[in-house]
């Protein structure tokens, strides 16, 4: 049974239909990428899962129907969604943002996890704890958003355009962290990317969306060789 399964999911913003019936599945421990052009419905697919857009169709997460649950409830089931634009709490400090990541957790391990995240995985956070998060650079905000999502100890991590507006070096660094967490801790990842090269590098399977529906799906290696995908998204 897949960890996440969408079947015939539709979503609209007012009169504009964004998803025309998407079906996809993510198994536990997989890294799955969603590719596609602007407006293909990539972001809306993630929003459908996290409950931030109204949908019809079936969305099952860990065997439960989550289609009609609010974002708080979905988050509490172990889904961490790093939205487009990162969703940093700009007026709070870096450390307060990180602490908010662990909002749903109780117990003694939380503090140690926060410290470990700030010293081992993202060492720069340690020195900038008191800084107002809105004054961080774009790359730092993306790192903080990722760190904040990870301290929640999610089962499913959803990243929306993590590379957007970032320097290539930082993008590499970001995806290294994602890959490491997938390999070492079995974290399941669903990543939306416009940068198909990076996305296919880090993922094992991928879906290509076109105007709100799945156009192509397959393993990342297959997609890399796929004529249409190569031409439209990889640029060679």
């Amino acid at each position, binding site marked *: 049974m897949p960890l996440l399964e969408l079947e015939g999911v539709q979503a609209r913003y007012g009169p504009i239909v964004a998803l025309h019936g998407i079906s996809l599945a993510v198994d536990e421990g997989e890294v799955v990428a969603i590719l596609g052009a602007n407006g293909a419905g990539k972001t809306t697919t993630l929003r459908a899962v996290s409950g931030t857009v109204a949908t019809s169709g079936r969305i099952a997460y860990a065997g439960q129907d989550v289609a009609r649950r609010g974002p708080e409830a979905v988050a509490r089931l172990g889904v961490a969604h790093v939205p487009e634009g990162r969703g940093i*709490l700009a007026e709070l400090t870096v450390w307060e943002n990180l602490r908010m990541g662990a909002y749903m957790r109780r117990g003694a391990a939380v503090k140690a996890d926060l410290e470990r995240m700030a010293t081992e995985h993202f060492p720069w956070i340690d020195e900038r704890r008191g800084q107002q998060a809105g*004054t961080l*650079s774009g790359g730092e905000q993306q790192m903080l958003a990722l760190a904040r999502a990870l301290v929640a100890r999610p089962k499913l991590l959803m990243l929306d355009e993590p590379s957007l507006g970032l320097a290539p070096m930082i993008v590499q660094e970001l995806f290294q962290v994602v890959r490491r967490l997938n390999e070492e801790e079995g974290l399941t990842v669903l990543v939306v990317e416009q940068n198909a090269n990076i996305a296919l590098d880090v993922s094992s399977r991928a879906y290509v969306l076109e105007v709100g529906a799945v156009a192509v799906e397959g393993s990342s290696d297959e997609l890399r060789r796929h004529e249409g995908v190569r031409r439209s998204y990889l640029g060679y």
Partner: protein
Amino acid sequence: MSEFLQQLVFGLAIGGVYGSLALALVLIYRTTRVVNFAQGEMAMFTTFIAWSLIENHGFSFWPAFFVTLGIAFLLGVGVERLVIRNFEHSSHLTVILVTIALFVIFNGAAGWIWSPEQRAFLGPFSAAPFDVGGVAIARQDVGVIAVTLLTVALLWAFFRFTKLGLAMRAAAVGPEPSRLLGVRVGWMFAMGWGFAAVLGAVSGMMVAPIVFLSPTMMQAALIYAFAAAVLGGIESPLGAVLGGLLLGVGTTLLGAYVDVVTPELELPIAFVVLVLVLLFRPAGLLGRVVVRRV
């Protein structure tokens, strides 16, 4: 000199009352972007509850005080959940009308339940003054300052140091990202209203012994509180409290030392100063512009 000190302490006491009511307004404005015109009437209503506990149910002051704070919290939460929440997506004007309606409802209800006449409300502080270096300082004034500032300090510590306080701040500055982190934002907003009602209740119970208990007792205080909140910067909790203290001390000293300033003139003069401040500092004294990088 001794009279000056007495006036100063009285000004700080009344300023503490304005400041805590102003802080209530800021709290609600920051969490739900609502300007709550009913804040003063909610404070008055809960003060009547305290009075009723003391007069009719045999409570002494402090137990009645704390029970009232609990009731006020529930009242604030209830008002948000049952009324304000339904207007979450309405225009500012609609919401203002709703809070004005609440103003009228609480005012009318208090008059109907407890009758509109003025009553004496005995505070917890004895009339005997402190002797500070030969100056008699009213125990009542010192007590009011201590209680209002302690309440503000406790609330500050709650928001600064507790997980729930942090989540309430997060919900206020970023409701959408907070939901994704598992925060039940609606309840955070409701609790913001609850804490605001608690602050209002403190200010009501502290000012009632000074101005007498009646359904209109908080109306002047509310106007001062609005002025204090805007003067300090409507987004700044510290600004609201400082604004309240400034207004309290300023109007008291003006009334005491400038002969032409009769009590009728205190409020207009306070507002002339307020308008002048806003001309030069549109965001208020402590209002700040949030720095953001994209």
